[in-house]
């Protein structure tokens, strides 16, 4: 993996191809280094191998949904990788649950481009805790069990 732009590496996880493409394009144009995943499992796997600085995660996905991904990530990882969840409705119950599972922020679909950029930018606002690389790798590996 190239080390360039490691600081602005984003993983986008969404089962909706159109959304995935839209978000990735938008964020790439804004200067981020964007990678994608089509479902929850792929998302977890790429989290481990890519080690992105931030995660954009759709909540509504078949098989393993966004909540499941957050759960598998665990407290330590969600603290280290700020996560923006995409939710279909304005239902705050979903948002509350996601927050409790460690998500940092949320965005309601459909969303404006400017709001997407604002929310992603604000994800990077809080510096992640600097734990040792070892520990982070270990916690990521455990997720795949």
């Amino acid at each position, binding site marked *: *993996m190239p*080390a360039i732009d*490691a*600081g*602005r590496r984003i993983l986008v996880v969404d089962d909706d191809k159109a959304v995935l493409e839209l978000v990735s394009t938008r964020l790439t144009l804004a200067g981020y280094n964007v990678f994608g995943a089509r479902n929850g499992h792929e998302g977890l796997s790429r989290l481990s191998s890519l*080690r992105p*600085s*931030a995660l954009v995660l759709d909540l509504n996905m078949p098989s393993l949904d966004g909540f499941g991904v957050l759960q598998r990530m665990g407290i330590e990882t969600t603290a280290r990788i700020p996560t923006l969840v995409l939710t279909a409705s304005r239902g*705050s119950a979903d*948002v*509350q649950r996601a*927050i*409790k599972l460690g*998500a*940092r*922020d*949320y965005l309601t679909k459909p969303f*404006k481009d*400017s*709001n997407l950029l*604002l*929310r992603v*930018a*604000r994800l*990077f*606002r*809080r*510096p*992640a805790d*600097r734990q040792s*690389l070892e520990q*982070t790798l270990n916690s990521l590996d455990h997720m795949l069990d």
Partner: protein
Amino acid sequence: MLNQLPAGAGFTENQFSVAMEHSPIGTAFVSLEGSWLWANAELRQLLGYSQAELSGMTFQDVTHPDDVASDERLVERVVAGELRSYSMEKRYIRKDGSVVPAQLTVALVRDDARGTPLYFISQVQDNTAKLAAGAERAQLMERVSLATRTAQVGIWDWDLSNNAITWDTVMFELYGEPPSTNVTLATFEGFVHSDDRDRVVEELSAAVAGALFDTHFRINRRDGQVRYIRALATVMRNGTGDQGRMIGTNWDVSDARRLQEEALAASKVKSEFLANMSHEIRTPLTAVLGYTSLLADRHDLDPKAQEQVERVAAAGRGLLAIVNDVLDFSKLEAGLTTITPSPTAARPLAREVLEMFVFQAGTKALTLRFEAATEIPEFVTLDPDRLRQILVNLVGNGVKFTDRGSVTVRLAYDPASERLGIEVADTGPGISARAQAKLFQRFSQIDGSSTRVKGGTGLGLAICMGLAEAMGGSITLRSRVGRGSIFRLELPATIVAAPTMRNASLDAHTQLEGLRVLVVDDNATNRELVRAILEPIGIEVSEACDGQAGIEVAANLPVDVILMDMRMPVLDGRDAAAAIRHGDGPNRDVPMLAFSAQDDGRLSRTNSGDLFVGRICKPLVPADLLSGLSQAMGTDDVSGEIAVAYAGH
């Protein structure tokens, strides 16, 4: 040099005898039997006898009877060889019978070879001046002592070599101890209240080293009383320049202290009351001002409606000023008034005030005039609210008390003295000289009857005067019965460039779109107002109606900024903010802005600086809210990069 000269070397005998004769110290040779062999001019003058008269007398003849015995005893001891010389204070009796106090020093001259006594050399110094000084000093000491005793000022004397302390009677009284008590430094320190002791000990050490000892402390008397003591002291150096003693004073200031504490407490109660009243009154005013301000910003009103809205807005501001009137008066009374100058457009401001009274003037067919006598600078440094307040009062009075004719507001600016002059002239009944004097006093209108007819608190002019003076200016009055009145306000006002604040709100609009704001305020109108201001520019507003609800919402919903009202029941703004900041919810790092009234002293840097990034004053002005939000967002490093934690991968 002189002690190396062999006797007589370089000086003749004659020179010696001339020197002796004219020495300023009385000098004499006295025989072993006590008779005067020779006395110099000084001594002869002192005693009042001629040489011839003295040669037939003895020293006892001219000595005060009470001093003869001691003098003779000393002579015996010198002759016996016990002493080489002696010195004593004694009194001489002059020829005219008057008494002269003197210092006598006598040495015995012996035969060189066998040591046989030959004669005495006596030196006599007139002590009159010295004794008089001594007596004067004694008298002075007595006066001081009387004064300190009367004033209940205790005097203490601390011997630095052995820490023994001498107290006068007042000290013993102050400390409640019998005069027989032995006092040392340790004893004194034992009396000092434990909270003050370390400080006092430190101050004493510093004083011994040369610092000024000027302090206060509490003492615990043996009878249980606690007293506040003021103390002053000074170090007395001994002959070699070392610190020998410290002498000082103590006096009881307990009464004054108690009064001061009571006054402070009363003042605090007053301030609290003022703050509460201010809050109660400003809250509905916020709605009036806020919404009229929004209305004024609308572009879909016809010019007439626009004008009317402007009038309402101006009247709203005027109303606010009147509310401030009452509160300001109370503050002026309490000495708590602040003046905040800023770039002010004085001409439009004055015009605006005048226009506030168009309707009222219309009912009486009064003409309102506005004149600018000289070039008025566009912006000057003045406190606009205070200026408006004064002008509303002056113009309002003019309109109120004038039934026909006109009220004119006239502006003038003198660039040389940098002073702005505003005259409010009316064609009313005028004010007599006697009435003028009364006018500027509190609570007095010229006669009580006009209060009932015209209404008013009577506070206005007194406040105006106080404010004008607080701004460094003045208000004067020229008036004659039947000829109307001219109130003249003069204020120092430096010319200044136009403020750039106007543009800030435009930029803010674009930056803030998409932001999420949580407003926590127990007042529904305030929350609505915030929503009405922010939603049109694309900001998502969430609400909470008290501190507890605010904490709950903040725990579940991530937002970008929290607007926190400081005064809420049950859980106030500060506590709610602290709970959010120190909790582990998604908003713990989110910037928070405090809502509070201007004179609410609760938000101070020391106690809330870590919680809030800024403050927005009530009543709420849209521009303030927007710029406050922009600033709060600016304190965030939105573009912050995460450090490369995965280096080398």
